[in-house]
Structure formats: structure tokens, C-alpha cells
């Protein structure tokens, strides 16, 4: 599948935003002393800004962005529509939570209720985003049991890394947040490893033979394509550039998304102080590169069954 930059930014930025909002909400539930108003407001506003940037980026993928509002109507059947609805619903508890912190330096039980609502709202939206891809039967690499867990794990990893960097930038150290980043990072690493192993296993469910129904005569080969130039289908579904460099890109992902941030977080926990902050920020920068590479691969490695009509043997 063609990795559209607008969609990569949409899924990664909104994923990180919802992860950040969810972690903030979770940690603020017990009203710890290290969450003060500047940290809370910065975190909430930054999380909401990431979500807005992601949603804004997703409209750039549309042929008719001015009609984007129509996408909210078909939530009964469409995961894309559900994602839009969930994103808008999630603005209610998160926005009100930010307002609470603006109104009071130590908001009381109302903020805790809103934080409690923020967590499922953020997770539900991330789930809908993942299901846009996870529900497509035409792409084996997306309709995979680990697609949804991957989206959750990466959302929580990038969110925790951001939250950890922010707490350190505001001069506090919250080892719980860093522990959360380590757990989410290890889980995401393991899930991605098993996901890659899963999609590398050859599948012969859909083949050129089942696509054409000509398997009764033997192996099916494309003799002549219907057109001499590329068309929309071949550009959108037949993207093959990254597949050639898959090993290198996977290594880059492992190093920048998992190894780099996890080691940086451990170092930040170990040294603390100014260097601790630097390490936490490094972890965020590294993970940003890594998650973009990971999402690029998620698209580029996905092989659509329509390629079977254009010469692919199996998909």
C-alpha cells in the first residue's frame, strides 16, 4: 500500500496525543504532588494539539477535504466514521479537564471524574484508528490479530515518553511514568517482533489462481496487462519501493523506536538532573523518527490482493 505521508502523520500524531492524554489522566487520578498546574496544562494542551494535528493531517489525504464533516454520519458500519465520532466525543472530557486545570490550581473531584472518562475515550479512539486498517480483509498484513495491540502499544509508548520528557522539563521526576514507558516499550517491541514474524510467513489464501478462477488449468501468470502505464490501482495498492529495503527499515525501526528510547529512559532514570532531562528528550526525538519509520513500513509492507490481477502470485 502506498504510504501517504498525511496518513502516517495522522496515525502517529493522534496516537501519541491520545497516549499522552491517557497517561496524564491515569497519573492525575491519585492527585500526586508532582502534577502541578503548569505541567498539567502543558501536557493536556500538547496532547490535544497532537490530536488536532493528526486529525488535520488526515483531511489532507481526502480528495474533497471541505466535505470531511460528512464522515461523521456512518458510524453504524464504518470504522473511519467511528474514529471521527470517537475523536470528537473524546474532546469533551479532555477539553473540560484542561478547563478545570485552568480554573483551579488543584481541581477536585470533577477533574478526577473527567480524567476517569479521558482514559476510555482516548483508548477507544485509538482502537477505532487501528480498526480502520484491521478490518480490511483485502490486506493480510493489516487484518492481523496484532494490528490493534500494536497501535495501542505504540500509542502508549510514545505518550509515556512524551509525558516523561515533560515531567523532567518541568523539573520533577516521576519514576512511575518512566516505568510505564519501559513497560509499554518492551510490550510494543515484543508485539512488533511477533507481528513481523507473522506477516513474513508465506500465505497462499489468495493467489492469482483464486483471483482469476483459472487455477483449474495450472499456474496462472499475467500475460498482458490491461494498460501500458501505471494507473491508480497500481500506484495506491502496488507500492513496492520500501519492500525492497525492508530489512534495513526494520532495523532502523528497532533501533530508533525501541532500543534508543528504552536505553535513553533507563539512562535518564539513572543519572537524573539536567542530563536526565536531555536523555528523556532524546528518547522522544528517537521515538518520533522510529514511529514514522514503523508506520511507513506498516503501509509499505501491506500487500493488497488486487495486485494479484497485476502479476503478483500471492497476497
Amino acid at each position, binding site marked *: *500500500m502506498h504510504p501517504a505521508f498525511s496518513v502516517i502523520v495522522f496515525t502517529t500524531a493522534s496516537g501519541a496525543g491520545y497516549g499522552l492524554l491517557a497517561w496524564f489522566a491515569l497519573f492525575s487520578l491519585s492527585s500526586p504532588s508532582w502534577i502541578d498546574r503548569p505541567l498539567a496544562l502543558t501536557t493536556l494542551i500538547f496532547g490535544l494539539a497532537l490530536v488536532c494535528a493528526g486529525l488535520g493531517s488526515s483531511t489532507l*489525504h*481526502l*480528495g*474533497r*477535504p471541505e*466535505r*470531511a464533516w*460528512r*464522515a*461523521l*454520519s*456512518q458510524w*453504524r*458500519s*464504518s*470504522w*473511519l*466514521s467511528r474514529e*471521527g465520532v470517537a475523536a470528537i466525543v473524546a474532546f469533551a472530557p479532555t477539553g473540560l479537564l484542561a478547563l478545570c486545570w485552568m480554573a483551579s490550581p488543584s481541581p477536585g473531584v470533577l477533574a478526577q471524574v473527567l480524567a476517569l472518562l479521558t482514559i476510555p475515550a482516548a483508548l477507544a479512539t485509538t482502537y477505532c484508528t487501528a480498526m*480502520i486498517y484491521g*478490518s*480490511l*480483509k*483485502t*490486506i493480510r498484513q493489516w487484518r492481523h490479530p496484532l494490528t490493534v495491540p500494536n497501535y495501542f502499544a505504540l500509542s502508549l509508548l510514545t505518550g509515556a515518553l512524551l509525558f516523561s520528557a515533560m515531567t523532567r522539563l518541568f523539573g520533577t521526576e516521576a519514576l512511575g511514568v518512566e516505568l510505564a514507558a519501559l513497560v509499554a516499550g518492551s510490550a510494543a517491541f515484543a508485539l512488533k517482533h511477533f507481528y513481523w514474524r507473522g506477516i513474513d510467513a508465506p500465505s497462499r489464501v*489468495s493467489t*492469482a*489462481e*483464486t*483471483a*482469476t*478462477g*483459472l*487455477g*483449474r*488449468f*495450472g*499456474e*496462472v*501468470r*499475467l*500475460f*498482458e*496487462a*490491461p*494498460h501500458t*502505464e*501505471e*494507473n*491508480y*490501482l497500481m500506484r*495506491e*495498492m502496488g507500492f513496492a519501493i520500501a519492500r525492497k529495503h525492508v530489512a534495513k527499515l526494520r532495523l532502523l525501526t528497532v533501533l530508533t523506536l525501541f532500543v534508543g528510547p528504552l536505553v535513553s529512559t533507563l539512562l535518564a532514570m539513572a543519572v537524573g538532573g539536567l542530563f536526565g532531562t536531555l536523555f528523556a528528550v532524546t528518547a522522544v526525538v528517537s521515538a518520533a523518527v522510529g514511529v514514522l519509520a514503523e508506520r511507513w513500513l506498516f503501509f509499505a509492507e501491506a500487500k*493488497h*490482493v*488486487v495486485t*494479484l*490481477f*497485476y502479476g503478483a502470485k500471492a497476497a
Partner: protein
Amino acid sequence: MTCLPESVPGQKKLGLVIDLDTCVGCHACAVNCKEWNASGHSGPLSDFQSKSDGVWFNRVHTFEAGRGETSRTVHFPRSCLHCEEPACVTVCPTGASYKRAEDGIVLVNAETCIGCKLCSWACPYGAREFDEEDGVMKKCTLCVDKIYNDNLPEADRQPACVSTCPASARHFGDLGDPNSDVSRLVAERGGYDLMPEMGYRPVNKYLPPRPKKTGCSSGSEDTISLINLAEKRAEKQRAEALAVKIGAKDAAPTELLADDYPVGGGKGAAFLRWADRMLSR
């Protein structure tokens, strides 16, 4: 609404039956489709503009299946199959994609499509092509503006691809009615679904190529050789010549050659033997 209409017993399912045995791969269906639809329900279809490479609802591929003498070369028109479980419809976030309850035709409303392309990702058959000029998705309409068009003579109320096919390889009708001509054709010829494992339950069916005629009645049953044919023809002629000489009219063996192989005898056989040798190098 992108939820699918409820299927009722005896549901009308308009669709196509495509005969892969008789399709000659002339692309006339694709061209006439473009011709009609460029000014039809989803028209204009972009073409030859700066950033687009043209939207077509129908594409004709050619496949080879099998190896050696039993292999087949099959022309394979590909268009929307108007599935009974079209995921392209259910994934649509706006309701622009819909399946008509009255006849099962899957359409896109170009006025409300936002061009998110998700429907084209959900379609296994490549039926949907994005119009970069209009920013919306386009697809086969089964010529909905032709098949119900009262201004046309009744005989012309067929999809453009069907009315133009010079080989009568395309048939249009109600596949929900088991007694319709198309349903009978599917039953007789073993019409099949493309990628049945997807579970989309296509309405359009494909008729497989008929079994190959072997062309000779003796020797190895599954091989045809130019030499065999030529030798048999020569043998037949020798026998005929002998029969003439000896005055026996019915002595010539009659079962030697299938009539539809007009192979020359005598010098022709020598030529064929030479051609076979050359081609086998």
C-alpha cells in the same frame, strides 16, 4: 446509509456474466464503457490531464494458465462485481457509497464522496478508481443510466460493455432469478466467483473456458503434434490414392482427422515437419 439493504427472498440482483471462453480480448467493452460513462452517471471521467491517468470502469487483462500444450491464454475483463456483501460500501464513512435495495447495483454519490479512498482499499477486485481531477471515487454503475433509460429502444437497455461485445462474451440480467437466462447460463457452464475466500459474494459470474479439443483421435490423448497431424493426413491421402487405384471406394480410413484441422497433405506435410523442427530448436 452504508449499512447494506436487507436481502429479501427473490431479491433482484442485476449483474454480468462474463464468458472467458469466447472473450477475444478486443477491449471493445472497456472502450465503450468509457465512451458511455464519460458523460453518464459518474462522468466526466478524467483522462489525459496533467496529474491524472484516466479512470476506467473496466479493464481487460490477459492471463496464461498452465504450462505446455494444455495451457490456456485467457482474456479476462475485470470490473465491479456488485457484490452481495460489498465491504467497499460498509467502510464508507459518508454514505456516498451505497448498494441499491431494488436491484443490488453498487453506486457512489459523487456529490457526497469525500475521496478518502478507503472503499478502494476494501475492494479486492480493483473495481474502484480514484478520479484525481474530481477528488472523488468512481466505479462501474452497471450503466444505471442506460438500462432504465426510457428514451432508448428496449433492446438497447443493456450496459454499454454488453451491447458492444462483438463476441457475445458478456451477458446482462437478473442473477437473483434462478430462471433468468443469465442464471441458467451460470448453471449450465459452471459459472464461478472471483476470490470466493474474501466472502464478498460477487453477483457477477465468470464462465470458465470450455475444455480444449484435442484434434486427433489416436496416439497420446493429451498431446497434439504438427507431425502427427501431417502424417495422419498423408496416410489418409495414401490410403485414398490406393483406394482409387484398386477401385475400392470406401476403403479409406475415415476417422483419422478431425475436420476442423485444415492441414495440407503431401508437400504440406513436409513443410509442417520442417516447421516443427525449426520451431523446436
